């Protein structure tokens, strides 16, 4: 090889390396700029009373987001109760019986649903639950979030079920254990760490959704009156406060955003830790 060619290769190599490194840095930079910006604006308004108080009446400065935090937790919890069993059991079905056209169609539908804009799902819940019941309700919000959650849980659970070696299932079947028991007591426990991780990631994803809640859970400036009534949620508070004309509300929107981001981040980190823990346990 001639020296000139070698030099050219080195230059191209160097260029490509810098390019990829620059793109990586750009990716990370966006994340950190967002985080930094939120913390910069949010930390100022964040204190204990902000977390423990109800919102003040419009016009009065101060107040907190206690009801929104509780509301978010309740709406997301109900969404998980509705969505997780459907997603997990659906994944079991796909994994066991989905090696045909039906399986292909279900997977494809799940991926389409996954790509569906969340506001469309909100409209769907509005038409299907809010209008017939003639009321905004936390239930409708949870249902919308559950619909968003199902395809995520379905696909991630199926991925992790797929990672369970066929030899384990065969070991169970060869002992004369019925198929459903093998799935329930051998296959799912072996994939449990991963399944839980997928569930947590889906939960942190829906915890940050605001669009599907706007015309379902609607929001509420007080403690909620149960599942069949409007309920506050962090993303709704952020949305309402951010588009308001009041300086003090902008401040609170930042602080609420910071709380939400921290919670979602914590969920993500927990999910990763669990994943590692789960892997470790099955390797131990």
């Amino acid at each position, binding site marked *: 090889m001639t020296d000139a060619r070698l030099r050219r290769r080195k230059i191209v190599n160097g260029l490509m390396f810098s390019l990829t490194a620059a793109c990586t840095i750009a990716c990370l930079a966006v994340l950190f700029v967002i985080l930094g910006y939120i913390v910069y604006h949010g930390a100022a308004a964040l204190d204990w009373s902000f977390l423990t108080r109800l919102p003040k009446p419009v016009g009065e400065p101060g107040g907190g987001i206690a009801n929104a935090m509780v509301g978010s937790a309740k709406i997301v919890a109900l969404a998980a109760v509705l969505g997780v069993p459907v997603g997990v059991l659906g994944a079991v079905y796909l994994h066991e019986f989905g090696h045909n056209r039906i399986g292909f169609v279900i997977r494809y539908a799940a991926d389409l649903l996954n790509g569906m804009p969340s506001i469309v799902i909100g409209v769907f819940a509005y038409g299907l639950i809010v209008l017939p019941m003639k009321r905004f309700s936390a239930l409708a919000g949870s249902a919308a979030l559950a619909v968003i959650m199902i395809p995520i849980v379905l696909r991630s659970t199926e991925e992790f079920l797929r990672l369970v070696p066929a030899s384990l299932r*065969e*070991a169970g079947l*060869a002992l*004369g*254990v019925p198929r459903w*028991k093998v799935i329930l007591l051998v296959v799912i426990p*072996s994939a449990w760490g991963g399944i839980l991780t997928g569930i947590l990631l889906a939960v942190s994803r829906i915890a940050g959704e605001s669009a599907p809640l706007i015309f379902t859970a609607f929001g509420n400036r007080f403690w909620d009156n149960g599942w069949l009534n409007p309920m506050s949620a962090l993303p709704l508070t952020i949305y309402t406060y951010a588009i308001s004309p009041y300086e003090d509300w902008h401040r609170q929107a930042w602080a609420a955003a910071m709380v939400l981001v921290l919670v979602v981040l914590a969920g993500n980190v927990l999910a990763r830790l669990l994943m590692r823990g789960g892997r470790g346990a099955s390797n*131990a």
Partner: protein
Amino acid sequence: MSDERTYSILEARGLSAGYGSGDAIRNVNMHFYDKRITAIIGPSGCGKSTLIRCLNRMHEEIPGTQVRGVVALSERNIFHMDPVRLRRQVGMVFQRPNPFPTMSIFRNVAAGLILNGLRGERSLAEVVETSLRQAALFDEVKDKLDQPALNLSGGQQQRLCIARALAVEPKVLLLDEPCSALDPIATAKIEELLLQLKDQLTIVMVTHNMQQAARVSDWTGFMLMGELVEFGRTDEIFTTPRDPRTQDYITGRFG
């Protein structure tokens, strides 16, 4: 050709099986005698695993398989039996040790009983101890029964899998190359153990290792390209084979 001191507990009659495109085994006729060890030998890809999996219908776990012919367990066609009940009578040990990773040693052995909710006269602890003793593993693990099964060595894991299969008290135990992932010492232990188990149950073993077949089996079937070329007493197969292809294989001329 038969074994005058025992009877055929399991029998393949005109058995053919395949994976969608063509047959992997063709028209296999074979007897498995009660409380005897039968070895199935033959070059890679000749259909040994396919045959042995048909014997407790584990082939059904591979999508697209089809079977013709009959396998009879005590004169009952297994293809008309409930596969779950069949597999409690005809257990299987696989090539790679596959203990349940989420379970302790104890629970692995007891798994068949726990998962099936079977509780006989004997306590779980008794069954586990007996099975581990039968698998010549008890002394090595008796102090760590509650440790994860994956902490054991490969050879120990394989004996654990044998113990697990024995715990449900099958009449027939199928082993598909049980020693191919093991070193010679672990292999010797398993061979010894099979010879001891012969008093209690019928053993069918696939092996690549002709010395192993000669050492442990009473009967041997030699397969080639999906056909059972020759089946007979192990000493006869290895000393005076009738088919020239068997002769070639056992003298190492091919395969």
